[in-house]
């Protein structure tokens, strides 16, 4: 082809090629040996390491959430259970166009605007790779429609799960409480290992206090999953243990009766078995629907509950602090008798008021015309303020504090669900510390009739009256009487815990106090004769009413209560136990703005006692209506009549009740 052809040395070219061919072959062999060496390194030397890495890749340790324990009442009625539910969830990061997906889901699943709003709220708080619940309780039809179209909905799942359900709804809401989503605040205090696979935690009530027993322990399973995390098969299963079942001391029927008996009034009822401290009923009204929380409450509903002036989320029985009013009088009588400053048989003259020496101020009796001459039992029965001004004056605040403290005032009772407040038992020391003032004798008088700084919770009142019923004995109030293991069915009783008894020098002291309290319901002049007259068992009780707002001195007071605005009316209180000679139930009732203890609170207690002792409610009171009150019998009222030198604070500012800080979900 070209001029160079002439000088081509073909033999040399072939020899050169052969040499280079062998060299190429040699290089190839060396490189193959390099590959082989590397493969031996990977597949033989490091095999164990890579096998572990491969297993780590494909195996996922998945928690198996335990089934939460059930909650029963004392008769075996369910208070909290788990219902199977189909839950529609969305994993946000697996969805391209969330709005479009929601719009298409609306065609096959019934989605309310509220569902979507709630979903969007949860969406904001959840990492994008975690499923977010859109709807619970899908109907079988909705599940079927989803299953048909499921491949059109990447990132959307329907899972069968258990949802907490509260059959009694609002009636037992404050006792049982509810579960809600685990928040960051919860995470800070719990052991996250024990919540593997769980997304709810007890927030309030028994659900919160007995969380550890109810929750159980999560199990684990090892599943094989692909790179996308989709589980393919189960390799290993290790069962956890289900939560324990709780048997409460609550009687659901009694709870219902108490709740109904309050009618339209806000308030609290606590009923105890004085013989062992079992809480038979614990009502705070109004209640709330706990199922709302178990299903994940939305912000609007939650804030509506928070802003409700009736404060449904607020457990009045444990957190509500009220001036005890005249219900403190039996305890004052006890204190006077025990300290020997009160002679029960010595008549005291009540002119309708008391003047303290050196003061022009009149401390009035609720009965402006005066009670005349009274001894102890009649003074209790007719709730004479002047008599108890004298009792208080003779004791002095220090001895009063000591005696009332023995009954549990000023401390939490130690109820097993916690969440209590201690109220306030005012002492000289307290006043100096808090108000930087000395104690004034007039304040002792106010304490003597349950006004002034003294505040108590309904729970404290119930425990205190049960100790009178038991003549000094007492038991720690409790709501859980047995814990059942669902595996094997073993039930462990919780033994009642005895409190240090209140000892007396002379046992007749109890007789005198209890006789006075029996007179309250049995004497025609007793302030609660209306509920005691026809009762087939003897009731020992005490009415009380406590001022919500101060009423200026000399303003006509008696009778005015019926006509003034509801929220300005006094709180009505009643404490009682029955039967008086062999007590089986002790009750404390606070009816907010119920005006007078005998009118609003005493019938509630009577109905609760009827239900418990007789199995049915015999008493049919004129309804304790919030709007129409019957004209009072003159002696039937027990109006908190003192006009102290300063208006007693209805609630101490340092101890103001507040809502439990429970975030939604």
């Amino acid at each position: 082809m070209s001029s160079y052809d002439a000088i081509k040395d073909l033999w040399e070219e072939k020899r050169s090629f052969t040499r280079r061919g062998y060299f190429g072959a040699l290089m190839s062999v060396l490189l193959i040996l390099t590959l082989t060496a590397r493969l031996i390194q990977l597949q033989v030397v490091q095999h164990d390491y890579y096998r572990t890495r491969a297993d780590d890749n494909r195996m996922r340790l998945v928690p198996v959430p335990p089934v939460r324990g059930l909650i029963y009442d004392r008769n075996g009625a369910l208070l909290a259970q788990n219902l199977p539910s189909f839950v529609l969830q969305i994993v946000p990061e697996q969805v391209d166009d969330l709005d479009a997906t929601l719009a298409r889901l609306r065609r096959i699943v019934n989605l309310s605007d509220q569902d979507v709003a709630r979903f969007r709220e949860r969406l904001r708080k959840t990492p994008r790779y975690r499923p977010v619940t859109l709807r619970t309780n899908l109907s079988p039809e909705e599940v079927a429609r989803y299953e048909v179209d499921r491949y059109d909905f990447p990132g959307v799942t329907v899972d069968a799960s258990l949802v907490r359900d509260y059959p009694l709804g609002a009636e037992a809401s404050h006792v049982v409480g509810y579960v809600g989503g685990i928040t960051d605040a919860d995470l800070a205090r719990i052991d996250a290992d024990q919540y593997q696979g769980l997304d709810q935690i007890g927030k309030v009530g028994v659900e919160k206090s007995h969380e550890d027993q109810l929750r159980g322990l999560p199990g684990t399973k090892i599943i094989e999953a692909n790179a996308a995390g989709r589980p393919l098969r189960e390799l290993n299963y290790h069962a956890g243990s289900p939560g324990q079942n709780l048997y409460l001391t609550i009687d659901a029927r009694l709870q219902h009766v108490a709740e109904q008996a309050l009618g339209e009034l806000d308030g609290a009822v606590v009923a105890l078995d004085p013989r062992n401290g079992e809480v038979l009923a614990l009502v705070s009204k109004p209640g709330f629907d706990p199922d709302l929380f178990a299903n994940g409450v939305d912000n609007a509903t939650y804030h509506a509950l928070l802003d409700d002036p009736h404060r449904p989320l607020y457990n009045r029985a444990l957190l509500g602090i009220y001036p005890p009013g005249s219900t403190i009088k039996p305890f004052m009588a006890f204190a006077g008798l025990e300290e020997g400053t009160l002679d029960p048989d010595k008549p005291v003259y009540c002119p309708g008021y008391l003047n303290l020496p050196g003061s022009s101020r009149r401390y009035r009796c609720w009965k402006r015309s005066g009670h005349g001459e009274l001894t102890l039992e009649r003074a209790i029965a007719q709730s004479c303020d002047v008599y108890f001004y004298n009792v208080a004056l003779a004791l002095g605040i220090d001895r009063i504090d000591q005696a009332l403290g023995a009954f549990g005032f000023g401390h939490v009772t130690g109820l097993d669900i916690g969440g209590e407040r201690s109220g306030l038992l005012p002492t000289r020391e307290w006043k100096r510390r808090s108000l930087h003032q000395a104690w004034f004798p007039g304040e002792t008088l106010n304490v003597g009739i349950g006004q002034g700084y003294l505040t108590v919770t309904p729970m404290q009142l119930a425990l205190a009256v049960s100790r009178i019923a038991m003549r000094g004995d007492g038991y720690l109030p409790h709501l859980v009487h047995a814990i059942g293991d669902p595996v094997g069915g073993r039930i462990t009783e919780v033994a009642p815990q005895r409190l240090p008894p209140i000892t007396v020098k002379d046992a007749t002291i109890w007789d005198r106090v209890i006789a006075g309290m029996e007179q309250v319901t049995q004497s025609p002049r007793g302030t609660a004769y209306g509920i005691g007259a026809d009762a087939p068992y003897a009731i020992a009780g005490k009415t009380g009413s406590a001022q919500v707002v101060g009423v200026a001195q000399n303003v006509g007071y008696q009778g005015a209560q019926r006509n003034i605005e509801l929220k300005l009316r006094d709180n009505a209180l009643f404490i009682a136990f029955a039967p008086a000679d062999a007590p089986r139930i002790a009750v404390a009732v606070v009816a907010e703005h119920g005006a007078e203890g005998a009118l609003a609170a005493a019938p509630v207690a009577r109905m609760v006692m009827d239900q418990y002792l007789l199995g049915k409610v015999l008493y049919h009171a004129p309804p304790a209506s919030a709007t129409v009150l019957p004209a009072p019998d003159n002696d039937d009222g027990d109006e908190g009549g003192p006009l102290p030198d300063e208006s007693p604070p209805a609630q101490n500012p340092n101890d103001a009740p507040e809502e439990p800080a429970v975030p939604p979900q």
Partner: protein
Amino acid sequence: MNVTVITAAPKPILNWSERLERWHLDLWLSVLVLAVCALGLFILYSATGESVAMVVSQAERLALGLGTMLMLANAPPDFYRAAAPWFYGLALVLLIACALLGAHAKGAQRWLDLGFMRFQPSELMKLATPIAVAAYLQSRPLPPSLPTVLASLGLIAVPTALIALQPDLGTALLVLVSGLLALYFGGLKPRYLALALAAAAAAAPLAWYKLHDYQRERLLTFLDPSRDPLGAGYHITQSKIAIGSGGLFGKGWLAGTQAKLDFLPEAHTDFIFAVYAEELGLIGVLLLLALYAAIVGRCLVIAMRGQDTFQRLLAGSLALTFFVYVFINIGMVIGLLPVVGVPLPLMSYGGTSMVSLLAGFGILMSIHTHRKLLAS
């Protein structure tokens, strides 16, 4: 006498080798190539998640490739030498056309849409370049002088650059290697080789700035796979886990977890070797390496028996290019080399490379079966 020319009367008794040579096929090469292809289909079934459709599709391409191989084997080597300028020219025109109006595919302009099929001109160049260099060197005194070397380098550099710009670094590399190997077999003096290496080293920093981001990322990741374990390093990490966890005997066919559960990306294409190593273990891997080595060996034997310089240079270049192909892919999958898009020859799922590889074997067989008796 094992040289066959068309004779008037066929011999009554022919052994297998002779029967095949009547079709211009080489027995050893055919058996070895078919053995690797069979292993390829076998492991492809597992790597595709037991997809019969994909195996059938690959088998169809294999049939197309074998047909091409048979056709090319029947053309005499002189035809390739004569056609070399035209072939090279056509491939170059198509490459330029591809650069100008190539349809976008995977972000790279590699494909030329001919309406009835899509076609990768760079695959054509894998054959056209060594043919052109071999034909050119055949016409020159060897060892090549400096002008001849520079001219050859020009023949190699133009298609390499065009393909690298597509950007298809893997194919560009193979085209470069095939041309350089022809030059090497032509007797390129060691000092030129050293010069070329020095020039390459000098150009490396410049090339770095010319690389695409993802290409740089691959190189960096190769140097340190842990620097991006979920991104670019993920491929290599998962591949090494697959291979290492296979151990000596492997997890068994269809029992590899890395590919089955989608941890191994590109399991049926560039990373099919990892699936093979995971399921069949070191034993299976050594068998495969032995088969590849035998193919390269047989090709080198064919090259050494070539009857003129063109045949020898072309056959030698094709033989060692095939080996480089294998080495780059396996080296990449086991973490010895950076990740470049080079499939495992005869095994990876994909059309064009299968056809061009088998076409190369067809040319080798043509060289081997068209030998004439020469007067010595």
